[in-house]
């Protein structure tokens, strides 16, 4: 008899533990427990604790947690890469750091998660990552409610390219009729490839892999005649190949690939905060504010710089951030130009010219709305 009662007690205990465990990981925003607005579509009045994230904005969640969870790539040197010691670096990674500096005041308060091509949107949607900086192309479908991303300003204007062996005699895509092509799954490149070959009435066989390393390895071993991804990715991947000098990147640009960060669509406050940190990095380059001269710039009389650095105008407060949020980001990470040079510039193995990624004032496409 006692055994039975013990069993009941244990079952109840287990259930209680399971529930508290489920509820625990959702850090309740400091002051706002479950207001009704998120329950609009829900018949049930009693909201379980877990969706508390929707109640407040991620901005509060991130602050309460004290660190930013950022979805990145870990296989593309120059953009998102992880070294033998587990340190992340790259162009995309620096944007994670800038956001952490802007929101939390500490560029190192970032937890990186590898986001595979296939999983990245699910990670953002399910709240596993706060923000995604993973050479992700901004497209209509991904922006729509269907996939449910909210895209940030474009950080890198790219285009899809094709890598082939020099010995193959291929000079352009038109020579590739009947070719086998290695491509990564869950990417826009997989779709563009089909589009481009369809349009030219060429036949091809795609061999689709789960991540960049496997795709590249298969091409390198001769499984495919061509390897396709964004041109920046091709340049970066070349540094990992057995003998880069045997390969070349075709002139053809197969598509437009505006690469941008992304956040969860249902959280406008968080989207605004991240968007303006990214904008601020570009604006800083335009205004000539760098991590080196920022102390002098704090004393600048230029009203644009004053607003950018939070000396006047309370711009940060409007976004739910500290007013000096851009000072933190710029001191600890640097402006857009510094991020670019550090990861992709002339001193790196990639040496990618700025091209269309220059400021609008220098003939490029980078143009931010005004800081006011």
């Amino acid at each position, binding site marked *: 008899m006692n055994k039975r009662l013990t*069993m009941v007690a244990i079952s109840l205990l287990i259930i209680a533990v399971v529930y508290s465990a489920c509820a625990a990981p959702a850090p309740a925003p400091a002051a706002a427990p479950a207001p009704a607005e998120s329950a609009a579509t829900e018949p049930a009045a009693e909201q*379980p604790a877990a969706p508390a994230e929707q109640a407040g904005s991620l901005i509060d969640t991130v602050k309460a947690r004290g660190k930013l969870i950022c979805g990145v790539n870990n296989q593309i040197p120059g953009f998102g890469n992880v070294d033998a010691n587990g340190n992340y670096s790259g162009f995309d990674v620096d944007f994670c750091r800038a956001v952490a500096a802007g929101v939390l005041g500490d560029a190192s308060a970032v937890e990186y998660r590898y986001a595979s091509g*296939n999983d990245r949107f699910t990670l953002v949607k*399910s*709240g596993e990552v706060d923000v995604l900086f993973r050479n992700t192309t901004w497209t209509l479908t991904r922006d729509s409610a*269907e996939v449910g991303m909210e895209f940030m300003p474009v950080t890198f204007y790219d285009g899809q390219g094709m890598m082939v062996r020099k010995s193959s005699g291929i000079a352009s895509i038109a020579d590739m009729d009947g070719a086998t092509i290695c491509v990564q799954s869950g990417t826009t490149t997989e779709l563009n490839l089909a589009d481009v070959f369809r349009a030219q009435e060429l036949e091809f066989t*795609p061999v689709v892999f789960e991540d960049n390393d496997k795709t590249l*390895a298969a091409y390198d071993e001769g499984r495919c005649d061509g390897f396709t991804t964004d041109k920046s990715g091709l340049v970066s991947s070349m540094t990992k190949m057995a003998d880069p000098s045997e390969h070349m990147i075709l002139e053809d640009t197969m598509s437009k690939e505006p690469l941008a960060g992304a956040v969860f669509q249902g959280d406008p406050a968080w989207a605004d905060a991240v968007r303006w940190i990214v904008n601020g990095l570009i604006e800083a380059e335009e205004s000539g504010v760098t991590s080196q001269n920022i102390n002098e710039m704090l004393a600048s009389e230029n009203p644009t710089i004053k607003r950018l650095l939070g000396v006047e105008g309370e711009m940060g407060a409007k976004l739910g951030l500290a007013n000096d949020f851009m000072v933190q980001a710029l001191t600890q990470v640097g402006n857009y130009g510094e991020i670019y040079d550090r990861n992709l510039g002339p001193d790196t193995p990639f040496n990618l010219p700025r091209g269309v990624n220059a400021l609008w004032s220098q003939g490029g496409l980078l143009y931010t709305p005004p800081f006011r």
Partner: protein
Amino acid sequence: MARATFPDPKPPFYRDTRTIAVLVQLVFLGGVLLTGWFLYNNMTTRLAAANTTTGGALSWNFLSQTAGFGISEGPAFQPEESYGRAYWVGVVNTLRVGLTGVLLATVVGLLAGIARVSNNWLLRQLAGVYVDLFRSTPLLVQLLFWYVGVIAALPNIQDAAELGNLGYLTNRGMYLSWPQLTETGLNWNGWLLGGGIAAVAVAWLQRRRMRRSGRLGSGLLAGIVAGGIVAGAGYVVVAANATLPATTTYELRRGDRGTLFEDRNGNGTLEPAIDRTLAHVPITLYGAQDEVVAQGATEQDGTFRFTDLPAEAVRLTWSTPPPLVLSEPQRQGFNFRGGVSLTPEFVALLLALFVYTGAFIAEIVRAGISAVGKGQWEASRALGLSTGTTLQMIVLPQALRVIIPPLTSQYLNLVKNSSLAIAVGYPDLFNVSRTIVNQTGAEVQGIVLVMATYLTFSLVTSLFMNWYNQRVALVER
């Protein structure tokens, strides 16, 4: 009088074991339902927040939208077809590798299992090494070993290893010569079917006759002979009457590619809904000066395609093919065309699955054979039966009772393990579903679809194996 002094024999309800049993189950059920509700609610809330237009309702419309991506193997698939059809291609690919794998694993497992109880020392040790090696290493490691370590090490396509007249071996796959039914061979299908029916009928009759006269055997040989005669006679008849439709015409594009088809409505243009394409018909292409620029044959889907022609073709002729041709792989452009090809992804996955599962099946077979009493062997030997006959007629039929239930689990495992295909880029249903989910954002629907498909496979396999198990079970009276 004593009765009156006893306490109430009925204990209070909370000490009644029956009540408690019901209560415990109710609490458990409540817990399960609550957990389920919590998860469901969590999902819908989140979806509603993400998708403001539909309020998070799960829509299945994506299945009919254009997929836009290519699939490397399986049933022919064009990027302009729908997601639903892409998924179907994935399902077929899973079945291809799953069924072939189950078949090969059974054969390998049976042989290795018997070898493990063999009297031959070397055979026994070899089988032991095989089982220990492949049962004790992870499947994913073996899969990558086959793919990266074995197949990728094969020669490049430029210097493909030639397998005599059989075909070519490269790190892009195996290209094999393969007999294929041509357009005129379609009429042979009926004869083949007739041959199959004749084979089964004759085998059954022969078996019954043999059983009546007390002889052993299955009548298989008689069946095969009967089927062969019907099919062979059919071939002669079909070959003698082989003609192509009078309205055969062609479409030629870009001077090197096109389609050969039966123009059913006589308007001269190919309309896939009305016209019928002609498979494996020999063709000759002529250039502007009436010189021959290429010779070849159409493919299964009626198309033909040449690369690097000396001149553009302006017209072509065709001839009537025999019902059956041997299609040989020929180097054309970047790859081989013709014959059948096995991709490295398919071969690696198949190898990994059947070699791995075969090791487990070997142990199951060994256990089954060991479970048959020693007396059965001795009795059989006392009757003068050979070891082979003993194994075939006495031991294995009894061992099957022990073998079938765990064997079912291995079959289920093999089919489910095929989802590791994603590691080597084989487009199975899981791999394809991941791409679909990524492009449409239909995570929940995608997972539901995948789970339902694997569940269906597993249930069907179980049903079949249970039926078979009942058939071989010991008949008890």
